[in-house]
């Protein structure tokens, strides 16, 4: 029942943000014009990704504290779910970049940050798949996940602010939540959209964890 409620909340928020995002009045800014509506779809992917990678980080820490394999499953599935959002974020961003900056990929600290996040978590999954023994795999990949996440936060949280000459908006203050250029009607869609994608992301993660546990059960029963 409770699970269902969250499903409805997440689904409704996303449907609302998609419909309202296409319908509301947006300020006509130079260069971006109507493509500013992509803000509701593109930026939300990063918020969802960071939250889910955060979940992965916390579960990796929990594993190192308790050595309970359940946390390992949760961390790995969170990394996989986060990667999904990472790729969606990259694709929505590339389309936007093509229309506003003229290229699919531009030289920019925030784009590099996105690429590095994806590289790190793909490497994490490669590392996982290179080991068979469960406890060992869990322990070593948890160490890598914690090590990588802290460096990642430095990379995407600290370094972009120190660089000059970024053309990507949202450099001053917290990326994405920037006050400048975001008028109050847009906020009415933007914030619910973020919440909706985060809730949906967490739900996807939970379903993946359940699925992975069921697969383990099946494998056990078959033995």
């Amino acid at each position, binding site marked *: 029942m409770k699970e269902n409620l969250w499903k409805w909340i997440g689904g409704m928020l996303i449907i609302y943000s998609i419909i309202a995002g296409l319908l509301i009045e947006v300020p006509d800014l130079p260069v971006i014009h109507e493509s500013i509506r992509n803000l509701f779809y593109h930026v939300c992917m990063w918020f969802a990704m960071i939250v889910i990678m955060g979940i992965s980080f916390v579960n990796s820490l929990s594993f*190192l504290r308790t050595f309970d394999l359940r946390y390992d499953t949760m961390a790995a599935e969170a990394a996989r779910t986060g990667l999904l959002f990472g790729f969606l974020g990259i694709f929505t961003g590339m389309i936007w970049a093509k229309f506003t900056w003229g290229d699919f990929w531009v030289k920019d600290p925030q784009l*590099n940050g996105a690429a590095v996040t994806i590289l*790190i978590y793909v490497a994490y999954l490669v590392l996982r798949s290179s080991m068979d023994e469960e406890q060992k795999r869990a*322990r070593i990949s948890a*160490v890598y996940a914690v*090590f990588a996440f802290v*460096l990642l936060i430095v990379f995407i949280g600290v370094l972009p602010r120190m660089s000059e000459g970024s053309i990507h908006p949202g450099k001053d203050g917290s990326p994405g939540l920037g006050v400048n250029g975001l008028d109050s009607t847009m906020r009415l869609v933007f914030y619910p959209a973020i919440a909706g994608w985060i809730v949906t992301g967490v739900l996807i993660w939970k379903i993946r964890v359940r699925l992975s546990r069921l697969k383990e059960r099946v494998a056990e029963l078959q033995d």
Partner: protein
Amino acid sequence: MLWNEVISLIRKDIRLELRQRWALNGILLYVFSTVFVTYLAFSGRIDAGPWNALFWIIMLFASVNAASKSFVQENNARQLMYYFLVSPQAVILSKILYNLLLMMVLGLMCYGVFVLFMGSWVVNQALFVVALLLGSSGFAGILTMVAAIAGRSGNNFALMAVLSFPLVLPLLLTLMKVSAAALTPVAFWSHAGNLLVLVLLNALVVVLGWVLFPYLWRD
């Protein structure tokens, strides 16, 4: 107590290195041949931008190559012996410090060979060398930790590059920014902010290694 352990472990590593030589000579040859290939490919002198980029790419590959053997020399039996004799913190600290030494030698060597073949664009020598040394120590910290992870997983060489490149990037981009500045006439302290970032990154990596290595160690 800890420092005694660290120092004797480093001395052991240095003695091993000097006795075997192949590792150090291998690195030297690696740097030399990569730079020579670059020289042939570009047929001589290049502009400041590519100069900087090539230098750091060669540094990155040489460092990954050099660090990947950090934990290979020790077989499982010897690991077990360390396990009874010393604390895990002593092991990781000694490895980081030893690699620090190695990377600094490597960095200076690489700089020398590179200038020999490709000419020098460096205007502010002090800034460049400080960036090089800070970069080498950062490489040492991150790559030692990744070498420990990759070594534990069993497929050392295949994983080393994949695991380390994304982690080294924040360091590498900051380094390239500072060294690019050193190719133009700037004051040393104009990049104090970026130098501070490098120092803090180094400290962060050592702390992370200190906290996380004991988990890798236990088997």
